[in-house]
């Protein structure tokens, strides 16, 4: 049994320790907002926060996170969510960023993590978001939405 803290809730899971966190979230805990895109940390669709830092859940063995706080998209935008999560969601909706939407949980997780530091410029955004692939190529709106979210956080 492995003890986890997911979105502020303690959960016990009975899986081998080398199981990627991605599949524990999705298949064991029913948190399907975190997506499977590549399995090798090349696309960022599975991005979660591990003690506040963005991580690729597909390359994170569940046994390594027992003492950490994990936040998924469901937690990022929940009622009691972080202000960054709320700002990112509001900006994403205001600018109609999504198309197919499959990568957007991961995009929002990376964006929210970026926004905990200084107000980013385009270069910062490209650097922080380059690991998140969007095959619909919503990138221009992602950039604009991050700027918009940064403004919301200042307000």
């Amino acid at each position: 049994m492995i003890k986890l803290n997911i979105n502020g809730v303690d959960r016990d899971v009975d899986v081998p320790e080398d199981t990627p966190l991605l599949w524990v979230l999705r298949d064991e805990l029913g948190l399907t907002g975190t997506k499977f895109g590549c399995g090798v940390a090349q696309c960022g669709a599975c991005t979660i926060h591990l003690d506040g830092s963005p991580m690729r859940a597909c390359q994170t063995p569940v046994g390594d996170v027992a003492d950490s706080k994990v936040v998924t998209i469901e937690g990022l935008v929940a009622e009691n969510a972080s202000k960054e999560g709320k700002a990112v969601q509001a900006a994403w909706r205001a600018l109609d960023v999504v198309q197919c939407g499959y990568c957007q949980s991961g995009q929002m997780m990376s964006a929210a993590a970026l926004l905990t530091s200084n107000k980013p410029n385009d270069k910062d955004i490209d650097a922080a978001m380059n690991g998140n692939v969007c095959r619909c190529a919503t990138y221009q709106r992602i950039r604009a939405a991050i700027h918009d979210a940064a403004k919301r956080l200042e307000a």
Partner: protein
Amino acid sequence: MTIQERISGGQPVSTSRRGFLAIAGGAGVGLMIGFKAGPAEAATEAAKGAALEFNPFVKVSPNGAITVVVKHLDMGQGPTTGLATLIAEEMDADWSQMRTEFAPANANLYANLAFKAQGTGGSTAMANSWEQYRTAGATARAMLVKAAADKWQVAQGEIVVDKGVLTHPSGKKGTYGEFAEAASKLPAPVGSAQQTPFKDPSKFKLIGKEGLHRIDNDSKTDGTAIYTQDVKLPNMLVAVVAHPPKFGGKVKSFDDAEAKKVKGVEKIVQIPQGVAVLAKSTWAAISGRNALKVEWDDAGAESRGSEDFLAMARDAVSKPGTATAKKTGDVDKGFEGAAKVIEAEFTFPYLAHAPMEPLNCVVDLKKDSAHLIYGAQFQSIDQPTVAAITGLKPEQVTIETVWAGGSFGRRAVPTADYVAEAVMIAKAIEGSNPVKLVWTREDDTKGGYYRPFYAHKVKAALDKDGMPVAWLHRIAGQSIFAGTALEAMAVKDGVDETSVEGVSNLAYAVPSLQVELTTLKVGVPVLWWRSVGHTHTAHVVETMIDELAHAAGKDPVEYRMALLKDKPRHLAALKLAAEKAGWGEKLAKGRGRGVAVHESFNSVVAQVVDITIKPDGGVKVDRVVAAAEVGTVINPDVVRAQVEGGVGFGLGAALRNAITLKGGEVQQGNFDTYKPLRISDMPHVEVYTVPSTANPTGIGEPGVPPIAPALANAIFAATGKRIRDLPLGEQKFQSV
């Protein structure tokens, strides 16, 4: 045309109880793709007392929610928002009361009127639904107004509806929800379309207006939108399949001893496509598959490589084609009297669709039914295919469509490949458990159904004024339709239109045009890839015309305009893009600007691309200014989004994407070898639309074709080098 004909797309109709409209027979569908569609489904929702069905496309709940039944797959291109907009507009509903659900497989009710079969593609979703959905909305509105008029004892014409609220000058006021039940029992209006006209465009409150947000905005930004990958049924097993490394390979033998030891692995079965490992979780299924030892029989497999294919295609275009796709005038005569002749050869690689959600499909097979859940894009193929595999009747096969994490064409397959694979697995375990077939990214990249490779050879003659008088165009590559159930319909006199579209209907006024095609047979499955034939033909035509303009010493925009005199939509798009981009400005050394304009799927898109040659000789795409002529714009922001996305999709392919084979094996696997466009590659994109009151045309695909040639022309402007082989890859350039 009667109202019923408008809803049914002009097909013969019969009115069933409560004004239900059912298209009789479905013979057109059956003839076209070789199966007979099942009967119309019975209405069940009304009996449950929840959402009340007004017609196949509109349901109204007593709580006031209006549910639009969406007949098209939404893979990101936005038909869910667009179709809901058409209904909301005609019903004078409030956007916040709109809900959507995907239609079941039922070609009688939900055929794509452009195909006469149920499916999504060809950028037809909004265009084919334009009158059908507005009529459905107007009809529902009329029934609700009549119910209110009956209750209030007033004339229908005195009732005003705004944002879903009905009012009468006497002060009476009500909501759609209040009248839903009474209205749903009324007969649907019968008679001519004029009796229940749809709105005059001048009265549109939603269509064409800014500020209407995508209806899938909320669920796609809180993790609740359900894709196939997220579906979980009781006792479901996840299946991951070991596929042969070469196309056409088969299982010779396999050793599953190690795979069986993986915790969670439940069953291992051989199917025609390979060996399937079924487990309680996805990770166990992947691990089990990785532990399998399979020996493959490659006797019947394709074992050649990309170099062989391109050599074959190059050789084919050095000779006359085996079929003639277009012949006007006399090209030989044109070449005889030419002042200048220009020849060029082009090559294009296989491309994978690589949607973010790798392919998958859920099947629950029972003795007398099969229920499938997935991002269904071609129900009229998938449903009879599943029936044939299982021995069920088509109407015993039900399909529940969910959001698709991209597709770009990959989920609509004439062989129903991944759907058939899922069903074969379910059949192999005799339906003991529901099955979710999951392809990994590597399975998806290596799984075939690529945009075909092609070679083109063009010879063009200019007169003494530099204008083209003859254009001989040879194309060689695989046919998308050959060998499929749709071949008879789509291949005529040896010409698959998707191999030549964009050239055979050349927009430029060239007196003599000859387009020849040689169709090559290769054992690698191919498929339509967002914008299909235009992905390569637009590149050739638009870089050639640019080359001709330079040979003639003329400005590339003016030269195109002179040759497009009779093409007002091309002219409008080209002019708008050129104006907005500041065409004609002088750029600094190391920078380049290129243009392209192309018609596809009845829409015209022009793009002007600005690039910079980086110090290391690489290309940075700075800006793309696009103008689209798409008829009536239904949602301006969705149109912009589709062009932005089309630019990015086409740009990634032009810059660095290619699927290559060596000894029959695909050399790319994950995103480290099939490298997608990333945010740092994405240029600033501006999108403008040409004002129009014509019926809407497509926009899911038309943003793609112009980007590669406009980029190539910009590179030429900066460096003097022509780009005739895609992708650019690691090439370095020197500015001039």
